[in-house]
C-alpha cells in the first residue's frame, strides 16, 4: 500500500481535536498559501508499520514548539525546559499518529515518538525520511505547523 486511506479532512479533524484537548486552543487550516516553517525548526514523528508503512510527522518552529509546550503545561514559554518541549511535541505526534493509525486498514504497530532538530526546513535525522504523501498546513496562534504523512518502502512482511 503506497498511500494511506487517510484524507486531508481526516487529518484536519484529528488536529482540531488534539490541539483543542491538549494545547487548549485550535490549530486551524492555513487557508491561503502556507507560511514557511522557520529555519530553527523541530520535528516529531511516530512510525506506523503495517499494510501501510510510514511516519506521521509534525514540523514547526522551535519557538512555536516552546509556546505549545507552555500552553500544555500552563506556564510561560521561557519557563519550559527543552526536554519538556520535546516531550510535548512527541506526545502531540503520538496522539495524532495513533488517531491516523486507527483510520488505516489492517493491523499495524505504532512506534515510540521521536523528536529531532530540523534546521532550514531540512531534517537532520539519521534514518530515511520517507516520501511525503499527504501534508496538512495548520496555523496555531498565527504560527505554522505542518503535519505530514510520509510513506516508507514496503518490507517483505508488508509488500
Amino acid at each position, binding site marked *: 500500500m503506497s498511500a494511506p486511506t487517510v484524507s486531508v479532512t481526516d487529518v484536519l479533524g484529528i488536529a482540531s*481535536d*488534539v490541539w*483543542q*484537548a*491538549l494545547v487548549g486552543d485550535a490549530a486551524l487550516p492555513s487557508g491561503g498559501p502556507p507560511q514557511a516553517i522557520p529555519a530553527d525548526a523541530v520535528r516529531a514523528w511516530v512510525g506506523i508499520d503495517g499494510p501501510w508503512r510510514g511516519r506521521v510527522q509534525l514540523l514547526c518552529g522551535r519557538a512555536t514548539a516552546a509556546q505549545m*509546550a507552555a500552553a*500544555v*503545561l500552563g506556564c510561560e514559554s521561557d519557563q519550559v525546559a527543552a526536554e*519538556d518541549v520535546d*516531550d*510535548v511535541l*512527541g*506526545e502531540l505526534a*503520538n*496522539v495524532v*499518529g*495513533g*488517531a491516523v*493509525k*486507527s483510520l488505516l486498514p489492517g*493491523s499495524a504497530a*505504532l*512506534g*515510540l515518538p521521536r523528536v529531532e532538530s530540523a534546521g532550514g526546513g531540512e531534517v537532520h535525522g539519521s534514518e530515511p525520511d520517507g516520501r511525503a504523501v499527504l501534508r496538512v498546513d495548520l496555523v496555531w496562534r498565527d504560527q505554522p505547523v505542518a503535519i505530514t504523512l510520509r510513506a516508507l518502502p514496503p518490507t517483505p512482511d508488508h509488500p
Partner: protein
Amino acid sequence: MKILVADDSRVMRQIVIRTLRQAGYDGHDVVEAENGREALDKVASEAPDLVLSDWNMPEMTGIECLRALRASGSAVPFGFVTSEGSDEMRAIAQKDGALFLIAKPFTPEAFEAVLSPVLG
C-alpha cells in the same frame, strides 16, 4: 486510594494527573512509572488500587505489563490511557484483563465515566 500512572511521557503523566483532579479524583495518592517494567515493580511495592497505563512504552509496554500482572495472579484494576483507541486495541485490552481503554486526547468527563465504577 492510590492510583499508579504509567506513561513514558512525563508531560502526559502530568496531564493524566491533572485530568484526574478535574474529574473529581483529587483526594487520591498518585504514584508514577515511566514504563511498563517500572509499573510492574510499583504494583508490587506500592499496592495501588488502580493502574492507568499508556500502551506503547519502552522497556515493557503497557499490554506486556498487564499480561505479566495477570500471569502473576494480580487482579489490580487496570485501564489504558493511550493514543490508540481502535476496536482492535480495545478488544485486546479487554481480553487481557483491562477494565477500560481511554483514548487520547481525553476529557475529564471520559475519565469520570470509566473511573466512577472503579473508584466511586
